[in-house]
């Protein structure tokens, strides 16, 4: 049990996919304009991660080594299609604002990375907790980045104005603001890491 909890928590801090492993940045940056988008993307990615980790862990003994990557990609693409159709059906507004980045979860390095590095070597329970932990870590990172960007870029968080009289810095809502925020955040986490040692 203790091991499983460790598998879960490592994805959130010690091996956070965004800030420590620096994986899957394309959707992170493109989607983080508002917190609502960030949460939606995080949930979709978590669902895909969880589903694909489970299936890959289940079939890991049957897949020949040579064609494992195409097999993983098909499994992942199946879950992405499920997520895409559900999002189109239940939340069309979110689907429109995420646009092409929903189908692009297929090529998100985090998902394939976990399948290749973890799920294909471990049993079902660890794969489940690992997938969930990574998904939660990714979602938290998305929320952090999008909260910073939405607050500085439009003065609001989830549509609520926080500070009266705050003049929004529009550049943070633009692509270059996203790159700046992630660059500075990565630098900040590096600083924290170096301090500890």
């Amino acid at each position, binding site marked *: 049990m203790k091991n499983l909890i460790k598998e879960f928590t490592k994805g959130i801090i010690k091996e956070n996919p965004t800030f420590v492993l620096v994986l899957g940045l394309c959707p992170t940056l493109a989607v983080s304009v508002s917190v609502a988008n960030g949460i939606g993307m995080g949930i979709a990615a978590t669902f895909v991660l969880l589903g694909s980790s489970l299936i890959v862990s289940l079939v890991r003994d049957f897949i020949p080594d040579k064609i494992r990557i195409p097999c993983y990609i*098909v499994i992942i693409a199946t879950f992405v299609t499920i997520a895409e159709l559900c999002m189109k059906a239940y939340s069309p507004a979110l689907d429109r604002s995420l646009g092409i980045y929903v189908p692009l979860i297929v*090529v998100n390095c985090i998902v394939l990375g976990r399948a290749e590095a973890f799920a294909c070597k471990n049993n079902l329970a660890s794969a489940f907790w690992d997938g969930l932990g990574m998904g939660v870590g990714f979602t938290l990172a998305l929320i952090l980045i999008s909260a910073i960007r939405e607050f500085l870029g439009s003065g609001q968080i989830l549509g609520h104005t926080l500070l009266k009289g705050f003049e929004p810095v529009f550049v943070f809502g633009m*692509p*270059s603001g996203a790159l700046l925020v992630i*660059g500075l955040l990565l*630098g900040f986490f590096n600083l924290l890491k170096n301090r500890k040692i």
Partner: protein
Amino acid sequence: MNLQEFLTIFISAVFIYNVILSRFLGLCSFIAISKETKPALAMSSAVMFVIVMSSVITWFVYRFLLLPFGLTYLRTISFILVIATFVQFVEMVIKKVSPHLYRAFGIYLPLITVNCAVLGVAVLNIDMFFVNGKQVAGSFYYSVFQGVCVGLGYTLAMLLMSGIRERLELCNVPKALKDFPLAFIIASVLSLSFMGFSGFKF
């Protein structure tokens, strides 16, 4: 199909909506391989080739397989399979025909399968040039041309970035900002300068 349409696609794909700096597609390879100019160029040419070819193939798959049989919901899964197979096939052909070129592309070719730019352009083409399940006039030419332009935009961003990073090797940067964080901050400034192009409205 007219010339102005092509010009619009060119300007918007290369400058205004540059794949890397404004759409964030293919960012991983952009950050990882832009340390020196030479590998950056090799990667860009490989990516450009794959993007153009996959735009052609995915257009045919969508137009003649998915649309007539009402299978459009299989778009993501079929596109990624086609792209992965194609990249594998190209790798085998290049290995057999030109070992020299194979060495030059090296590890970059298999990496391209998971480059978001390739799948991104394929999906984008379908979104832009098929309206309500029907192709717009000349959509095939537009798709291929958009593939070429996105490849050019990728090459441009790669060249600029690797040039800047080569010079930064000699500079004294704060320890916490070395490598990744600094690369993102440079990309941010580059992207800021590319925002100037959005003044071009057609």
